[in-house]
C-alpha cells in the first residue's frame, strides 16, 4: 500500500506505565491525520517516537515503505507541544538559524507570509504573544518545506481567534499537498481539520476512520437536551429505565440537563409535548466526536 508513514505494534514502557501499548498506524500521503485522546493517552509519546526523539520499547516505523534514514529529518517538520527557543534572537534570526540547518529550505519570504509573521520579524522571540509564538513554531516546522508535518497540540492554550489563525495555516499546508499528523484534544478542531482520525486511549487506538464515518458508525441520531425544570415531573418517573419514544436518557448533573439520544427526533419531540414538557429551552444537536469518545471509552474526554 502506498503509505507515507506506517507504524506497527509500537510499545513504550516507562517504569510502572505503559505509555504506548501496541499501537498501529497507517497514513496515506496528502491527508491530515488526527490523533485524538485525553491528556496522558500516549499521543505525544507516539509522535515523539516516530520523530526519533525518544526510542520505543518495541515496534517498527516505516517512512515511505522503509525504516527512516538520515534523510528523514530533512523531509519532516516538527512542532513540539512546548519548545523554548534560543535566547536573545529575533523572530527573523530564529527562522534564519533553522533555515540554514536544512538542505532545501523554503524561501524565508514565502514562509513568513504563509505563517503571517510579517509584523513581528524584528521582535525578540520571547517578546511575542502566545498566538504569535505558536505561528513561529509552525513556521519552524515548515522551514524545510517538509513532506510530512507533525503538529503536537498546535492550538492548546490559544484564544479562539489565534486558534482560527492556526487552522487557516494548517489548511494552507494541506492545499500544498503536505501530509499533516496532528494531535489534539479538541474534538471540534479534529472535525474541521482532519480527513482521518484515530482515537487513542491508554496507549491504544480504540477507533479509526474519517470523522463522519466514525460518527455514523458509532453515534447515529441526534441529541435532544432539556433543563430539569422543563419537565412536569422528574424524567426518572416519566421514563423509567429509559423507556419511551426518546430512548435512553442521561442526566448531566453539573449542567442540570437531561439528554436523549434518538434516531427519530419527530417522535421524541411529540412524546415530550404529550406529557406536557416545556420545549422553550430545548436544544437539538447532531452527534459530535465528544459523544463518540464517550460512547467508545465510557469516560469524559477532557479530563
Amino acid at each position, binding site marked *: 500500500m502506498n503509505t507515507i508513514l506506517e507504524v506497527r505494534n509500537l510499545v513504550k514502557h516507562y517504569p510502572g506505565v505503559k505509555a504506548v501499548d501496541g499501537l498501529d498506524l497507517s497514513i496515506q500521503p496528502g491527508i491530515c491525520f488526527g490523533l485524538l485522546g485525553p491528556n496522558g493517552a500516549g499521543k505525544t509519546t507516539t509522535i515523539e517516537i516516530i520523530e526519533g526523539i525518544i526510542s520505543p520499547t518495541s515496534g517498527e516505523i516505516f517512512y515511505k515503505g522503509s525504516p527512516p534514514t538520515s534523510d528523514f529529518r530533512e523531509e519532516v517538520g*516538527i512542532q513540539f507541544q512546548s*519548545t*523554548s527557543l*534560543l535566547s*536573545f*534572537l529575533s523572530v527573523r534570526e530564529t527562522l534564519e*538559524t533553522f533555515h*540554514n*540547518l536544512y*538542505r532545501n529550505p523554503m524561501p524565508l519570504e514565502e514562509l513568513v507570509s504563509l505563517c503571517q509573521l510579517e509584523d513581528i520579524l524584528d521582535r525578540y522571540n520571547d517578546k511575542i504573544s502566545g498566538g504569535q509564538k505558536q505561528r513561529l513554531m509552525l513556521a519552524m516546522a515548515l522551514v524545510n518545506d517538509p513532506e510530512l508535518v507533525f503538529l503536537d497540540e498546535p492550538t492548546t492554550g490559544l484564544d479562539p481567534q489565534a486558534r482560527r489563525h492556526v487552522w487557516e495555516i494548517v489548511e494552507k499546508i494541506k492545499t500544498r499537498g503536505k501530509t499533516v499528523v496532528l494531535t489534539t484534544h479538541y474534538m471540534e478542531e479534529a472535525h474541521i481539520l482532519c480527513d482521518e482520525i484515530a482515537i487513542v486511549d491508554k496507549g491504544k487506538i480504540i477507533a479509526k476512520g474519517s470523522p463522519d464515518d466514525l460518527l455514523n458508525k458509532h453515534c447515529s441520531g441526534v441529541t435532544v437536551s432539556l433543563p430539569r425544570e422543563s419537565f412536569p415531573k422528574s424524567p426518572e418517573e416519566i421514563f423509567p429505565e429509559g423507556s419511551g419514544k426518546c430512548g435512553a436518557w442521561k442526566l448531566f448533573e453539573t449542567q442540570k440537563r437531561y439528554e436523549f439520544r434518538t434516531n427519530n427526533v419527530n417522535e421524541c419531540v411529540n412524546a415530550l409535548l404529550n406529557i406536557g414538557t416545556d420545549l422553550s429551552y430545548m436544544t437539538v444537536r447532531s452527534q459530535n466526536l465528544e459523544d463518540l469518545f464517550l460512547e467508545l471509552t465510557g469516560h469524559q474526554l477532557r479530563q
Partner: protein
Amino acid sequence: MHFGRFRSVRSGKVALWQISFGPECQSATLAGPRKYCQSATLALRKEAFIAKQSETLKNIMLKRFCSIFIARNKEYFRDRAAFGWNFLFPFLIIAGFAIMFQRDGHTEYKCGVIPSENPKKIHEPLPHILKDITLLKFVEFQNRDIGFEKLKHHRLDLVLEQGSDPLRYWISETSPKGTVAESLLLKALYDPGYLADKVSRESVKGRQIHYIDWLFPGILAMNMMFSGLFGVGYVIVRYRKTGALKRFKATPLTSFEYLTAQVVSRMFLLLFTNVIVYAGCAFLFNFHCQGSYFDLILLFSLGSVSIISLGLVVAARASSEEFASGILNMITWPMMFLSEVWFSLEGTPDWVRTFSQFFPLIHVTEGMRRIMNEGASIGDLGFQIMVLSMMSVIFMLIGSILFKWTKE
C-alpha cells in the same frame, strides 16, 4: 550564504548520469565497445559524483555549524549583564591588586608600639635605627592591653615596648607573619660587621618581575576558565532543561556540529574579551609581554579549547542547572588554587604538584607566564602544547560520546 547551490547540485546528479550515455558513446556501432565505453564513463562519472557529494556534505555541515555559531555569538553579545561582567571582572581584580600591592607585591608588617610600664620612660622614643625598616609599619597605642589584645587577634604582627632597654618585644607564637616581622626587627638591630663574615648579599641582574606582572597572566587564565566552563556548561544544561536542544534534535544538525560551534564560538569570544582586557590593563598598569603576542594568543586559544571541552563533559547529560553548578564549582575552585593563579606551588608536597598537572589551567598559566615574563616562544612550550592538545581531544571525545539532546 547561498542556498540555491544545493538545489543545483541535486539537479546536477541527474545531469551527470545522463551524460554517461552521451554523444561520445552514441557513435559506437558495435555492441562490445559501446558497452565498454558506457561502463567506463559510468565509473568515471560515479567517482566524480561521489567526490561532488562529499564536497556538498562538507558545505552542508559547514552551513549548519555557521548557523549555530552565529546564533550563539549574537546571544552572547546581546546578553548585556554577562557580557559586561566578562570585561569588568578581570579589570576589577587587577585594579584591586595594583592598589593593594603598591609596594611591588611586598607585604607590610604591622608593629604596635606600647608605652613603658615605667611612667618616667613613657616619652622615650624607639631606637632610631628601627625607623629605617621600610617593611614595618608602626602604630602607637596609649594602652598596653589594647596592643596585646590586637596581637592575639593577629591585627598586629609584633608589639614593641617604648623606652625598654634591652628592647622588649612580643610576638604571637601562632602567627607566621610574626616570625617574619621578628626577623626584620632583629636584622635591623644586628651590627653590620657581624653579618658581613657570615653572608654576602647580591641582586639578580636584568628586568625585575613584579608580583603584579606574575599575577596578571594568572588572572587572565582564571577569567578564561570561569567563562569557558560556566559559559558553555551552563548554557547547554539550560537549553537541555528548557527543551531548546530537543528542538535541534528534530533537525539534521548533528551533535558534533552543535558542540564544535559551541567550542569555537566561546573560544572566539574569549579571545575577543581577553584581548580587550589585556590591552586595557597593559595601558593602565604598564605591563609588558616579553614574548610574541602571536605565541600568547596561540597558547591562550589552545588553553580555552581544552577548558571549554572540559565544560562539554560536565554538560553532556545534566539537565539541572543546580547540579551542573555544583559540579562546576567542584572543578573550578580546586583548579584555581592548584593552577598557580594566585600563588606558586613551589615547595608544596610532591603529590599536590603531581595532582595539579591533571588540570588544564596550570599548563595555561605556566605557558602564559613563560611567554609574558620570560619571553619564551611556542617552541619552548612543547610540553604545555602537547598536554593541552591531548586534554582537548580527550575531553571533546568524552563530551560528544556522552552528549544527549534531551533529558532522559
